Structures are given as C-alpha cells and as structure tokens.
C-alpha cells in the first residue's frame, strides 16, 4: 500500500425511490488509497455516512470480481468508468488523481427504472432470455456430449459471445438505450452451435419482439455498446443477429405468432 492518499469530490445521484425526483449530492472523501477498488471507495464513503447518521448510498454489487454483472454505474459519463473491458468492481482508484471530481450516476434507460440511488431494475433482460434465449432440452434428454463435434472456430466464437455478463452497460452507453448487443450475444452463441439450430428462427423472432416490447431503442450503429462492454462482446454479433432476423423473417416458416413476445409459447 502506498502512502499517496487522494482527496476526491464525488457528485452522486441520490433518489429515494422510483417515483421520487432524484438529484446530485456532493461529498468529499479524503485519503483514498490508489489500490482500492472503486466500490471499496464507495464502501469507505458509506461507512462515514452511517457514522454521521446519514443514509448510505445504495448501489448494486455482488461478486466483486467482474463476472456476476450486478455492479453498474455511469462514472464521469462512461458506463463502468474509463477502463476498457473492465467492470466497476474491477476499476481501481489508481486510475484517478488527487483533486479529481467524479460524477456517479445510475444506468439511464426507460427499460431500466431506478429502484433507489444507483440501483436500477434490469429484469427486462431476464424477460428477453425467457422469450427465447435457451435450447429446449429437459434434464435427462441429452445424448453423449461428444456425439456432435463442433468446429473449434465456431466454439471459440460462441464462447466469445457467451461471455456476456448481462450488466446492461451496452444499454446505458447507447443514446437510444438499445439492447441489441445483449440480445445479439445470446442469439449468436446459440446460432453458432449445432445445439441451437432447431430453434434458431423462433428464438430470434421472439427475443427481438420482447426487446422491443420492453422499451429498448433501436440500434444506432455507432458501436458505443462495444466500447462500453466489460466482457468484450463485439458488434459483429449484432451483424449476425440482423442476419438471423432477416433469415427468420424471409425464409422461415415460423408463423407470425412466434414474432409476438408472449405468443406461441
């Protein structure tokens, strides 16, 4: 641990509940170690607030190792802060300087309403997966795992897409609050694998319909989502999603029912 503690000014969004009007509060925090994680810095601030008799700042977090996707935060206008391919919990204070002012906000999107302070409701993502982000195979149905070889290249690309942690940074970074990167990651993973083929058309139609219904915007084609993604999900997945969607609309015999978010279940 080094002795160079930083003094910071923090402007943090406070909002008691979904219906209340929110506003920025300013806090000063001294002696911040550069080896702290960003969330540990907020822990220290919260301990001080509790000692003063104030309510601590609510923020979502859990694993603190960059994989659960629960942490969020717009930090100085950037989803998960300034580092590429890094979640807020893996962002460290050595990235900031003594005297910095840091603005901290929740994800901003109609489909992600604020629950409290920096906590938002991302259950729309669960509903999109529920519409089609799966292979329909009951426990006990499966045949031997090696009976279906998968080319290593396809498997690697599927894994790249499957690495999505569902944090919602792509939505928060997009000026249209589009969920295309999130949806495309799951569609791509399953489209690339032979196990996903039987439900390929139905999956993409239902997931896209649900995405629209949940109030996410349309794609801007500006790739802000990829730049903000802590899991390194590429926008080439969006291109694959568009191909899958076109294929399903033009060439498949899935009925119109499948294109309704809750139709044809």
């Amino acid at each position, binding site marked *: *641990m080094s002795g160079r503690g930083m003094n910071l000014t923090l402007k943090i969004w406070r909002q008691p*509940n979904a219906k209340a009007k929110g506003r920025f509060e300013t806090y000063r925090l001294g002696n911040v*170690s550069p*080896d*702290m994680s960003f969330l*540990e810095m907020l*822990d220290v601030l919260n*301990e001080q*607030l*509790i*000692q003063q008799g104030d*309510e*601590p700042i609510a923020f979502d977090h*859990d*694993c*603190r*190792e960059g*994989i*659960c*996707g*629960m942490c969020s935060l717009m930090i100085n206008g950037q989803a998960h802060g300034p580092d590429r*391919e890094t979640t807020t919990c*893996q962002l*460290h204070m050595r990235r900031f300087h003594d005297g910095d002012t840091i603005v901290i906000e929740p994800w901003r999107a109609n489909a992600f309403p604020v*629950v*409290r302070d920096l*906590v938002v409701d991302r*259950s729309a*993502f*669960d509903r999109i*997966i*529920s*519409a089609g*982000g*799966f*292979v*329909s*195979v*009951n*426990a*006990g149905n*499966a*045949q*031997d*795992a*090696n009976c279906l*070889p*998968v080319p*290593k290249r396809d*498997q690697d690309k*599927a*894994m790249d897409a*499957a*690495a999505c*942690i*569902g944090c919602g940074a792509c939505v928060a970074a997009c000026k249209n609050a589009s969920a295309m990167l999130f949806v495309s990651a799951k569609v791509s*993973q399953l489209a690339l694998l032979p*196990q*996903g083929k039987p439900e390929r058309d139905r999956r993409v139609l239902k997931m896209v319909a649900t995405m629209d219904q949940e109030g996410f915007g349309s794609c801007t084609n500006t790739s802000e989502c990829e730049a903000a993604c802590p899991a390194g999900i590429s926008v080439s997945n969006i291109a694959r999603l568009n191909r899958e969607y076109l294929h399903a609309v033009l060439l498949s015999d899935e009925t119109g029912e499948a294109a309704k978010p809750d139709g044809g*279940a």
Partner: protein
Amino acid sequence: MFQVADSILDGHVPGGPVAQMWDSHKSDLKLVSPNNKRKYDVIVVGTGLAGASAAASLAELGYSVKAFCFQDSPRRAHSIAAQGGINAAKNYPNDGDSVWRLFYDTVKGGDYRAREGNVYRLAQVSANIIDQCVAQGVPFARDYGGLLANRTFGGSLVSRTFYARGQTGQQLLLGAYSSLMRQVGTGKVKLFARREMLELIIVDGIARGIVVRNLATGQFETHTAHAVVLCTGGYGNVFYLSTNAKGCNVTAAWRCHRRGAYFANPCFTQIHPTCIPVSGHYQSKLTLMSESLRNDGRVWVPKSPTDKRPPHEVPDEDRDYYLERRYPAYGNMVPRDVASRAAKERCDAGYGVGSSGMAVYLDFSHAIKRDGVDVIKAKYGNLFHMYEKITAENPYQVPMRIYPAVHYTMGGLWVDYNLQSSIPGLYVLGEANFSDHGANRLGASALMQGLADGYFVIPYTVGDHLAKNGTKLKPVPEDHPSVQAALGEAKSRVDKLLSINGSRTVDSIHRELGQIMWGRCGMARNATGLKQAVDEIRALRDVFWTQVKVPGSGEALNQNLEHAGRVADFLEFGELLALYALHREESCGGHFREEHQDEQNEAKRDDQNFCYVGAWEWTGTGQPPVLHREPLQFVEVPLTTRSYK
C-alpha cells in the same frame, strides 16, 4: 458447552454394493403421476447451479415451482464466479479414469469424512451433467477435431476436468439459468428476485413454506408449498474476507437450523491456496486465481529468507519449489488443503514474499518459455487480466503473488441420502448441504455437485416425499398460526435491528468477527484459541445487539439492513463453527488442529474416535447445542492415511 446425543443418526443410505445403490434406490422411490405433479408446489430458494438446475428440472417434470433469489436476477448467483472447471468421469482422454476412480479420488480427497454412497452417486451422474450442459449450448473448450478438451485439477492423476476458458461457472450457470428462464416463460416457474428468505414455515412437523422480505420494497411475503428446497450456498463470509460474493450468507440455512434442521460439520472450511493477497484495511473481498493455473504455474519461495531480490533475478538453484520438493508424486497439483498449509508453513517460517511477507510466487515463466505466450493467454487470459487489474502487475512478466483465502465450505445443513434435512419436506442441495466432500473438496467438484443435486437427484427424491405424504399435506392458509408466527418473528427481528441505533456500523462488527474467525479458526486451530474464539464471538454478539447502527427504514431498499440481518446470523453460526472445531480433536482435510500433526506437519486423523459426521441440533441462543453423530463406514475405499508424496 454442548451435549452429545446417545442415539445414532441414520443417513438412510441404501444397502447393497455401492455401484448398484442409486439404481436400486431409484426403483424403490415412489412416483407422482404426471397429471398430479402440477398440483404440487415446490419452493426453491437460491438460483445458483443447484437452485437453477433444481427449479428448471422440477418444472420440466410438471411441478409448480416458485424460485427465489436475493440478487436482482437469478443469473447473478455466485456459482457464476467459479473459474476452473467441472469434473466428470467421461474418460475421453483414455487415461484410466472411471466412475470408480472419481469416487475414490473424492473420498480420499475429502480425507475419509464423506459418505461413500453419496460420493459414488455423484461420480455416476457426473457424465450426464456434461451431456446435459453441452445440449444446452454450454461452450466447453474443444480440440481442433471438434471434441471436448480436458485439463487436470488437484488431487487427481487423470485429466477429467471440462472447462470454458476461465469462466466455467459462468457458462454452466447461464446454461441452468436459460433452462430456468425457459420454464418461467412457460409459466411453470414463478420467479421472485430481490427476495431474501428470513424464516422457514413448518406445519405439523413438515416444511411447508418460507417468509421472505422483498428487498426492493421492504414488504414481507409468505409463500407456502408442499416442499421446500434450499440451495443457498456456503457460509464462507463468516470470515468476512473470502472469495465469496459480498451477498453470500448463512441466513436461510441458519433460520432452518433454528427451526430444527441439523447443521453438519460446520468447521470443515476450505482455504484455497491461490488467491490474491490482502492489500489494505479497506479490503472488501479476496479474489481467487483458479486452481487450473497450477497446471502450468510453479509455486516457489526463495531458499533463503533474506533473499530480497526481485523474483526474475532469483536463479532456479536459489528457489524452493516446496510443493514439488515435499510431494513429488502430485507436485503442484496436491489438494487445496495441503497446498494452503504448505504456503502458510513457508510464510510463518519467514520465507514469504511481497511487502507483507504473507505471499508465495506462482510462476509461469517456464510454461511461457515452453508453450509461448499465446498458448498461456488462450488458457488463462481472463485470469491474468483480472490479476493485473487488481495488483497493477503483469503476470506474463513477473510471477503472481498468492496466498490462501477462505473459499468454500464443506459443512452445511445435514441431509440424508435423499438430500432431505432433519425436517421432513426440507431438502438441501449444493454447497448449502454437507454431503459429498467430507473434510476437503477437490477442485472442479463444486460445480459437479451443485448440478448433480439439481438435475439428477432432487427430481427423483422430492417425488418420493410428495407421493408418500401428498394427501396428508392440506393447503396452508395465510392466516395459519404457523405462518403468522414465522412472519411475526421475521418482522420483529428486522424491527429490532432498526431500533438499536447505537454507534457501531454493521461492517465494522462483521470485520471484527472475520478477524476472530481467521485468527483462531482459519488454516490452523488449537484448543486455547478456539476457546477464546467462543468467548470473543459471544462478547461481540452482545456488542452487536446493543451498539449496532442501522440507518434508514425497513420500508424500502436498505442494503445496510440486509447486511445487519446476515451478520446477526453469522454471529450465532461462528460460535458453532468454533465449538465443533474444538470438539473435533483430530486433523482431517481443511480442519487442521495443531495438536494433531506428525513430524512432517501432515494432518493426523483419528479414525478411532472421529470417523463420523457431526450434526448439531439447535437449543437456543447461548444454550449448549446437542451433537448427533452419524458413523461413516468405508467399505469400498478402506481407511488409510492420505498421501500425495
């Protein structure tokens, strides 16, 4: 301090040869007809590997399932953070693996403190798990021929670990989550996220429901069902610093314990050898570096305690590769408990590295020279990235500094062969139960157990309970006295936490508890320290209930209040852990009593006196609990001293 029951606890392990046990037991289990399944409600608490797979599988069978998790989405459960892999007896590499060998390795790795019957079943269904996951689209690593790849994990001489880069837990959980969400879509599962279980509802001696608090609104809810399946993970956070997620807790299990469920082997805790060392007093958690790294990384310290040269300047002849020296047969791949104690031994003797002296090197320079950077990057890239993020050091250039940290808990609620607790109708799966890993879990076996329990055991055993008791289980109305009593208790505890308004923060008390636990019940334990731990925990519990400060109200999202409830339960549970460590006068697996070691500092087990599962019955806060014993029989794998030399 406690009483010992005379009667023998029965694990209901079926008789006969272990290889036929599960098959013949399945034919004895009663079935519920397909048309009747929808009439039965099953509550599943927790949505990690065990919970998500159980909820999905039960819904696929036709049961009406309600699934609960405290996170904002079931996909966040901490199974997601498992890195290295999942074991299965597929023998794809043709290197001599078999169901029997996986069974043998697990019993031996657990230092002969697990039930043979359970472990054999685990090894048997392990292959089905891989099939199921591949069918779901889990992108396991493959070779150029398109077939599945394997790596080696500790405590084994074969390669049986399947993996998806360094994110195996994530991929398996997302597979189970996708199956769960498919059932949510069909309406067979009702999902309740941001709910924390605070009480178990028991009617006529049978588990019939739960009380939860909606964490977003603060509202209490009661849910009733015909069976309750608890999949709520381990209690590693009793140590404050651990590799667990911040939210991991013992509350659901502890609330069931207080209502009559026995708690088994609480002192069997796993300290993982390769974690990033503590860097400061503000540290909120510890990060694991996967055991798979030991496939290519070599662990060492300088041969001289005064050698302060940077690691790359220390020539090979001045390095002590102490695992390879002490355990030539297994080398760096010894089980976790052995590797952790060896690291502690070197650091305590003054050979540790880094500014604190509480770290050893995990060095990839040989592997990088042998295989090239690209090969190492493909295998471990995300782990190296994570290491660099946290420490600001590049592990491709300098060795990692690592030290052991609390990681997994083998102990948990006691269950019988059917995974039913001592409360009828309450089933416990995954890390939350005690059943399969004895006193030490082998790497890549937690994912295996969670999914085995959820996909392939509970669908059979819960049906037996419902078929036998179904007609007796009348609907439980919301105004039933048992429901109201449980609800009242949950509410009054929350009110009490909010009303103390003292001067100590919840986090400061949790940290203090962690220091007691790590100092006295950590990698090495002795009678004096454990007795002190019991006294100190009791004193700290009094401090908590008189001086804790929880701001805000119970009628909204209040994360501090959630934390307070969990710490309150850890303060009761920690005492039981210490008490059991004191009682178990032997060293086995992760439980190392300094009084019981041989001349080479290896653990000395006492099979004469301690070859049993210890299951505790609650008698009241501060009251002496009752210890029940379930003797363990080793027929297939005869009791011997565990050796990895």
